């Protein structure tokens, strides 16, 4: 993490806002009346003890779950719920807590798959895979290669992701998300199960994504050090409720947060 941490860009307007969202599975209340917003260009951390509903929150944001009540305002337009496809098209990309890569495909194909929305050449061109279809493939391959270069995974380009070590798979998944050229990037524990070095790399990538591409990022992370390092603002969930929302330092000394993490028997921070 080189260069000054202070942001020369002023944090833009609100990109996405969650308003009074509640979500329940059967009897279980996953989220209760949660509200917060994510501003253009910032890195927003969502933290909380296990089972606090962080992942559910992301699932609501990119439309994988439909909230029972509340609404989501994305790019100024309010909706009762996102739809996965709409979310993707609207520029929300996502990585997953426990990898959701296409294991049977190569690194290259995985990231190329991330371009699905951007590739439009018609079916009949695909049949012959020449002319426009090939031209399109080449264009997008070029973009994908830039991502590969950016994530420094050139050496494993043609390897099946299933065969890669965990840390690299995480990186590839990030690559696939980047291939969507998202406006909002949701990272679900991007550093889970990584060793120190891998974590440092990943942090660098996340920062660089945020800087070079100006991508807004919302990430769930357990490693407090990382969170403090990366994020501009932090929202804290516990038992599916928001208990704090502030700058990293503010959160650190918030008594609710401290209780949530240390006080409660269930509270375990991995």
């Amino acid at each position, binding site marked *: 993490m*080189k*260069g000054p941490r202070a942001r020369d860009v002023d944090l833009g307007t609100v990109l996405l806002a969650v308003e009074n969202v509640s979500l329940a599975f059967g009897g279980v209340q996953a989220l209760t009346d949660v509200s917060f917003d994510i501003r253009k260009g910032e890195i927003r951390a969502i933290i909380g003890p296990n089972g606090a509903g962080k992942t559910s929150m992301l699932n609501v944001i990119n439309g994988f779950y439909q909230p029972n009540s509340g609404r989501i305002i994305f790019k100024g337009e309010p909706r009762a719920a996102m739809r996965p496809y709409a979310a993707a098209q609207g520029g929300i990309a996502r990585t997953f807590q426990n990898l959701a890569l296409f294991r049977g495909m190569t690194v290259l194909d995985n990231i190329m798959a991330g371009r699905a929305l951007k590739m439009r050449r018609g079916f009949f061109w695909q049949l012959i895979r020449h002319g426009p279809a090939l031209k399109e493939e080449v264009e997008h391959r070029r973009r994908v290669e830039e991502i590969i270069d950016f994530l420094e995974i050139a*050496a494993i380009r043609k390897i099946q992701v299933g065969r890669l070590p965990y840390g690299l798979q995480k990186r590839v998944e990030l690559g696939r998300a980047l291939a969507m050229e998202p406006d909002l990037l949701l990272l679900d524990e991007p550093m889970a199960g990584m060793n120190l070095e891998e974590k440092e790399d990943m942090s660098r990538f996340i920062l660089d994504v945020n800087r070079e591409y100006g991508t807004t990022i919302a990430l769930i992370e357990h490693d407090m050090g990382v969170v403090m390092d990366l994020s501009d603002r932090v929202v804290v969930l516990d038992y599916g409720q928001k208990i704090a929302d502030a700058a990293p330092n503010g959160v650190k000394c918030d008594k609710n947060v401290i209780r949530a993490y240390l006080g409660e028997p269930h509270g375990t921070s991995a």
Partner: protein
Amino acid sequence: MIARIAGTCALLPEHVLQLGRLGTCSLTVLAQVLRWQKPRHFTAFDPVTSGQGNPVLSPDLTLDTVPKLLLHNARAITGRPAVRHKDFGIWQTWTWRETLNQVRAFSIGLAELGLKRGDRFAIIGGNRPRLYWAICAGQALGAVPVPVYADAVAEEMAYVLAHAEVTLAVVQDQEQVDKIAAVADRLPHLARVIYDEPRGLKDYGHGRLNTFEDVQRIGDEKLASDGECLGRWEDGIAVGKGSDLSIILYTSGTTGRSKGVMLTHQNTIISACNANAFDHLDQDEEVIAYLPLAWVGDYMLSYVQSYAAGYCVNCPETPETVVQDRREIGTTYALAPPRVYETLLTLIMVRMADAGALKRKLFDFFLSVAKRWGEKILDGERVPPTARLLYGLGNFLVYGPLKNQFGLSRIRVGYTAGEAIGPEIFRFYRALGLNLKQLYGQTEASVYVTAQLDDEVDAETVGKPSPGVEVQISEKGEVLYRSPGVFVGYYKDPDGTAEVLTTDGWVHSGDAGFFDSKTGQLKIIDRVKDVGRLKDGTLFAPKYIENKLKYYPNIREAVAIGAGRDFVCAMVNIDLTAVGSWAERNNVVYGSYQELAGHPLVYEMIAQHIDEVNRSLAEEEVMAGAQIRRFLVLHKELDPDDGELTRTQKIRRGHIVDRYSPLVEALYDRSTQAQITTEITFDDGHKGAIAARITIRDINSYPARAPKLERAA
């Protein structure tokens, strides 16, 4: 003689077009010259004849600077590939014309940014086309490039940049920018840094920073806006003379601060052309550039010789992918220090060790066949047809695929240089049918001092004087040479220059050697100052022993001590790749390099190797007395960052001996254990210390046996 060259030159331009394949003017001339003069000329025993033999380039010859060669190539072989770079997954290619455009734009940009004739500017980074272009761009303006080892820590970098008073630096990426930033306060002259990869540099103050594109844009705009600009630029090149200073290469001398070797265009171009002619290199060669830019070898091979012969230089995608990339390209010409061949051999052995029993048997069998007949067949000696058949079979089943795996199938000429190579390693490659040859060179000589002709290759010697080179052995056994390639002096160091370069142009190589009576080729024993004697006066050539040790894949580095002592001791570095996989196979568990190095079984294995070395030493009457009596395995890898190795990976014995003095004492005071704490430098530059308790083992030696006579042949 000279007249004849001049004569040939007169009708050159047409020639070039007719001769087609041959790269450039100067090359054509020399090619012809050589054809007239081979073979009996350049032996060193008779300075008079060799003196006449030198095809010194007459000053009126047109193409006497690299930028001129570029202009010529862009005209003569416009569409041929000049550079390839595996980038974004494919081999991006630039023809000579495109290369010219790139260089020109950047060059004019540099001029706009105020780079002037005579200025020094630094080049720091990996083997990227743009960095090579930057070199040429600067030279076109008459400025002098100063390549710096990319992996140098800020300290060393600061010294070189300050000493060379560079005004501008062209670097690869953030890493280098940061290093420079760290020592900026010590570099008053450095006004500007230009970087290739913008990644991560967004938030940096851009006052003194420019991207490569910026500069090229500036250049292009200038070209567009100002009609004369182009003319002026080309005139600027025309003004340049062969005698101009073309580059300053800082040799990471095996002792003390590194010196800046100043080479003129003439030095390098003549040597380059001679070398090209010597091995008949032309436009069709494929060369892969992966050795440090700051190494004279790379400067010659990937730059001057390429421009002179017009062949294509290929830059790998990343350092990790070199083997794969080499395989894709299929290089035809290579020059590398022994280490490269050693690591390759290690890789081969390690991978084979994991193969199935049957495959290994097959491999071993055909390897023995190769060892028996391979070299003979390569040298065109007559061998029984059965042998030929077997070898042919082996070539199909093993050698062929093997070479193919490592992209060596197309190698026409491969040189090992920079350091003596273990004869066994050398023979291994020869046996596989690779035309690997010895070459003795120095930065001060623009590499080439002696080299072996295809039909007189020998493992122990380094060949006869290269075209245009005279060689003498001083009475105290030091190798002296004189050639058109000889440098003009060390930068800002007249005394240092005087020590090495005599007034009549002879250079003191600092290496001890002699002309082998049988082959008439030069044989290098060791550094003059390193060749020592034991207390009892028996000759002791440490490097000779170390090389024997290093042949074993399991041994990465070895340090032999003994000068002025009672007997010889060795400190050994295990090779993590080799020993690691050995450990896996023999389920030896270990947590760290240190633990593995100290493992009794590992000691056992190393002991066996050393025992074998002693046997072979016993067979040579000169060396028999200097057999290894005690040894230990070091707990950390010798590392340039700790000053234990040079940037070109030569061991700095003196430094190591005092750095590990406790161990050395222990070696000689007969104790079997030694405690040591060493400070180590991490990649990011910060320092730490590691302590270790190290075992020392005795090992028995053998009585000297009568020397086997055929060994030399």
